[in-house]
């Protein structure tokens, strides 16, 4: 990717401790200028803590945070040229929408007229111009969300921080806002740092994703990289659905590993560093990369019995018991072609793997 891009936010070995509890364990990451960057992880993983450290609401116990090369960790929040969209918006209830959006500009030293003018522009950007005179309580959740976004964008921050801004919206509105946010990010060219626990949201919107767990950075990369080449068990399991199978390594040859799972099923996949013959490691394979068939293929092919077909709308999920081995899930698209491949529960079947579908994981 474009490694020449300027680094907007540089987190260097940041540690956050609350008494004995370590919320962040020496995180280092560089967020590029103009990037839609997502901090993704389950609740309690430290993603919000990291965001609040960048905003200035949490002290940095150790390490540093740099904004375009300047150390900012000692600056109070009101002196940092970054703005935040809060999880529950935190709009000022006694001010009109226009006053809310103009507040930051006014506080930065702009006149009331400047503030109102800029607020008007921002409301146009989020398509809420007709609501300028209303109070936040008179708006719907989705509209309040957009006011919060406009308010944070109005002072032209160098970096925009978004703390799970879509979590309070219903699914349909959330999907629409995802597209809108992405659009606004491209249009304004501002670096977005987006916190979410929703992996689908992260994959949809981000240029790059940092997957976090238990205060540690698990993997940093583009959505495709994270999804298709998860670095460890946690990432493979957290991002999307996957089959995690325990395998024993039999042979390593020419960048390929031959291994077997319980029941003696043989598999061949790409070798990775740190795997030795005889080791027991995990293998991750996405259900949609598996093909259900009544015939054995010449590649990786596992024999089992179908136990259940689950209809989930767009796809159909088939569960199988591998012969003397673990369970495995196959996902077939709900199309005419896909439906033809379905096999009734109780019948024997083969699970064929596309080349490169299975990935070994070190831990």
């Amino acid at each position, binding site marked *: 990717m474009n490694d020449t891009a300027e680094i907007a936010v540089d987190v260097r070995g940041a540690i956050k401790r609350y008494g004995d509890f370590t919320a962040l364990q020496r995180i280092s990451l560089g967020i590029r200028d103009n990037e839609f960057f997502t901090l993704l992880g389950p609740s309690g993983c430290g993603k919000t803590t990291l965001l609040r450290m960048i905003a200035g609401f949490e002290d940095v116990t150790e390490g540093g945070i740099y904004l375009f090369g300047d150390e900012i960790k000692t600056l109070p*929040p009101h002196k940092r040229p970054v703005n935040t969209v809060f999880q529950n918006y*935190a709009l000022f209830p006694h001010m009109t929408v226009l006053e809310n959006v103009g507040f930051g500009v006014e506080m930065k030293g702009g006149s009331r007229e400047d503030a109102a003018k800029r607020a008007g522009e921002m409301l146009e950007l989020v398509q809420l111009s007709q609501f300028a005179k209303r109070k936040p309580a008179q708006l719907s959740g989705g509209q309040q969300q957009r006011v919060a976004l406009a308010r944070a964008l109005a002072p032209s921050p160098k970096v925009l921080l978004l703390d799970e801004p879509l979590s309070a919206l219903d699914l349909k509105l959330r999907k629409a806002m995802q597209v809108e946010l992405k659009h606004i990010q491209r249009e304004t060219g501002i670096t977005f740092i987006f916190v979410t626990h929703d992996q689908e949201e992260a994959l949809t919107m981000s240029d790059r994703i940092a997957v976090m767990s238990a205060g540690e950075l698990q993997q940093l990369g583009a959505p495709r990289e994270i999804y298709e080449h998860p670095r460890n068990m946690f990432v493979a399991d957290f991002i999307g659905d996957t089959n995690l199978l325990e395998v024993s390594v039999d042979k390593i040859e020419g960048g390929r590993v031959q291994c077997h799972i319980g029941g003696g099923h043989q598999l061949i996949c790409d070798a990775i560093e740190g795997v030795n013959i005889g080791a027991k490691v995990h293998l991750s394979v996405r259900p949609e990369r598996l093909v259900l068939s009544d015939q054995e293929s010449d590649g990786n092919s596992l024999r089992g019995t179908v136990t259940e077909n689950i209809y989930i709308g767009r796809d159909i999920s088939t569960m199988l018991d591998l012969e003397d081995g673990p369970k495995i899930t196959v996902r077939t698209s709900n199309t005419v072609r896909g439906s033809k491949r379905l096999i009734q529960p109780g019948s024997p079947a083969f699970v064929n793997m596309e080349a490169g579908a299975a990935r070994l994981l070190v831990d």
Partner: protein
Amino acid sequence: MAGGAVSGGSVASDTYKQVRHWLLMPSWLVLGLFVFAPVCVMVIYSFLTKEFRGGVIWEPTLAAYDQFFFDRGLFGDSDPVLQWTYIEIFWRSIWQAGLATFLSLVIGFPTAYFIATRPEKTRALWVFLVTIPYWVNLLIRTVSMKFLLRDEGPMNDALLSIGLIGEPLQIVNTNLAVQLGLFYSYLPFMVLPIYASVERYNFAMSEAAADLYATKWTTLRRIVLPAVKPGVIAGCVLVFVPSLGAFLAPDLLGGAKNFMIGSLIEDQFKGNAGNWPFGAAASMILLSMVLVVLILFARQQRRAEAAT
């Protein structure tokens, strides 16, 4: 107030209305007997003729109000001249009560803010500590205050012994002592309502303000204060109104020269003056003033609400 009133449901069937009517009866009775009736008695008495050493004669007259505002000479036959004695007492009461309200706000707001921002577990303890003095009777606390402040009291002793002053400070029997007494008596009435509204305040709004380049002071002025205003107004009313009518602090700490309305009225019923119609008239004037203040506040509140 008494009575568990069932408030407006959407299904207002006849039975429901009847039941509600009966359930509200105790409240209406209590209000009628103990609020409405006494006020009526007072209004009527203020227009009656006084009986020597207490009581009234049932002859309607405006004498009580006349006495309040006008001087007609020793024998009551000179031309009426506007007299300032009672108006001055009222004026002193208003500014004493106003100052006590202001001081309570200055001390009470930070206190309430401090309590509301403590960890949830310790908040109840802080609130309890604020209310502890109220387990002791106000009379006893006011007398104790007098002992603390008097010339040979511990405060003067301490100041003398460290050489900060050469002569004991004369505080008792001054307006300052009355002010201290009022402030001390009603401070918790300021702290508690403000605490209740700060506790409900969403501190994410302060973070949002700081994030949008507002300093702490601006955040307090532009975001926190408007949000907790109902609590501040409630606190001010709860301190101002009883301060205005207080008689313990002015009696015990102020002496004869620093009369307030409360003492004046008390004197008409319990003391030597023994002029019931005049006491009732003074009470009516006080009540009207309090009502005016409350109505102004209520109107301001309503205007603020309408704007929301």
